[in-house]
């Protein structure tokens, strides 16, 4: 029974926290541009309006299935992500499984956008996959380093190890270089400004979202909430000691997303190959250095 509660509650909490994160993202952006910014329930209004659209245009069965796969993939990822109070299925599938479950919605979106038969979407997806290859190398190095120091890939175990000695045993304290390299990769994973090569409204008309309208676009907004939440919680679980209690946990996740969002709004957009070169130079370098330190111990 407990598991059933976890399965239903964890995605719901993820969605609500995600809405707060999206609201924070738009408010911070407005404040940086010296604007007032959207009202409190704006993300909810957007999603409800998109779902309440009277005409819904689809480009075939795969276009619909991709949205279903997208939502399903992220809901699964939420269930395998340990949060304070809920263990979900983190025992059954470990960190490696989570990384690959997070690729299922990306593949689903890619297939859906491909079936829209719009080259803007295809270019967007090819850039998104290139960016994924770019930021996943430093992320892999960081994850390998982390699992080597913790000795296990079981997420619940990792959180317990980090909380034994309070702040001193947090991931960021024991392996600062890996944490920094990991954060730069996670910033790329958010897909925001400096690495926002696949939305790129000016060049490829919002890339993958070009043919999405109505409830398809609403599902992508929901995905954005899930994405911000999942990546934030993943980083907190690996390097910031996971969640002891809900308020501290939410502050940590908000901090991770806030720094990334603050950085985002002062940057232009890199070219695709610049993203790949940058990601394979700085974050990978720092992370490899951290890994070398870990291996030396």
């Amino acid at each position: 029974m407990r598991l059933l509660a976890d399965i239903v509650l964890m995605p719901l909490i993820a969605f609500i926290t995600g809405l707060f994160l999206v609201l924070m993202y738009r408010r911070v952006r407005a404040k940086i541009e010296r604007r007032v910014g959207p009202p409190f329930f704006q993300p909810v209004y957007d999603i409800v309006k998109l779902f309440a659209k009277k005409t819904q245009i689809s480009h075939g069965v795969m276009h619909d299935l991709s949205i279903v796969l997208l939502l399903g993939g992220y809901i699964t990822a939420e269930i395998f992500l340990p949060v304070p109070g809920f263990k979900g299925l983190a025992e059954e599938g470990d960190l490696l499984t989570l990384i690959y479950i997070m690729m299922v919605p990306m593949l689903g979106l890619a297939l859906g956008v491909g079936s829209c038969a719009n080259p803007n979407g295809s270019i967007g997806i090819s850039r998104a996959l290139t960016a994924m290859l770019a930021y996943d190398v430093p992320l892999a190095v960081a994850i390998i380093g982390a699992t080597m120091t913790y000795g296990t890939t079981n997420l619940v175990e990792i959180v317990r190890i980090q909380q034994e000695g309070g702040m001193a045993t947090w991931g960021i304290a024991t392996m600062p270089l890996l944490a920094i390299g990991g954060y730069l990769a996670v910033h790329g994973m958010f897909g925001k400004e400096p690495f926002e090569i696949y939305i790129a409204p000016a060049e490829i008309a919002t890339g993958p979202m070009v043919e999405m309208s109505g409830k398809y676009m609403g599902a992508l907004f929901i995905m954005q909430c899930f994405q911000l939440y999942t990546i934030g919680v993943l980083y907190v679980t690996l390097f910031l000691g996971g969640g002891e209690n809900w308020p501290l946990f939410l502050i940590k996740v908000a901090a991770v997303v806030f720094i990334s969002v603050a950085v985002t709004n002062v940057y232009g957009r890199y070219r695709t190959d610049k993203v790949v070169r940058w990601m394979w130079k700085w974050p990978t370098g720092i992370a490899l250095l951290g890994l070398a330190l870990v291996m030396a111990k």
Partner: protein
Amino acid sequence: MTDKPLKSHVRPPQDTMPGGAGQGCPAPDAQTRSIWRRIMDDFADHCRARSLFVLHYCTGCGAIELPPTITSRFDMERVGITPMVTPRQADILLITGYLSLKTLKRVILSYEQMQGPKYVLGFGSCTINGGMYWNSYATMKRLDQYIPTDLFIAGCMPRPEAVQQVLLKLIEDIDAGRANAWQDYYRNYDFYLGNQQRLFGAGWNTPTDVIGEARHYGYYGPGTEGEHTRLLAEGGGSAARLAHAEYPSTALTGRIKS
């Protein structure tokens, strides 16, 4: 143009006069709505009013009024209006200023690619009665003859305060559930197509299958199909009288299953 102007086909006036009260469109769906549906519709209208995506399609000289409206000085994001790039995702289509015939074709295509409750705002006198290009052979005179328009703003070119006023009026209309001009495009498609054909010839059409959409979503009224759609079906189908090489005749038969 060779054929007789279509004076006889004037439709009943609609809520298009700037600031005019007017009785607006006939009520959207006549069947009595159950409590649950009414609550849902009210909630949906509530959210629709507070979240509008604007297609920043700079058609004429008024486009320069938009950036100040959306950025820090007037900041329409306070009421939930954000610019969006493609017509698929947009709710509002801005016609800022004069429309040459070639631009009108692109505007009609973009309008038909927009989804569900969509609103058109005519900026400036060029969209109302032709403005200072009234006697030009190359510009269209009344926007609401070619695509149903919700609100017009008088002025040549209205300042951001006026744009803000019209957007707030639109939000008020949507909230009250009155902004249903978009259904008129489906219900009286023949009228609009007739006017478009007068300018572009019988072979004119867009890849959007408007009649199919009208049937699918239940907006198929008596005015949807008529003399002009038949004219197009023969003209479009046989491709003999292809008005212009730049777009295909197979478009109306857009019912080819993708």
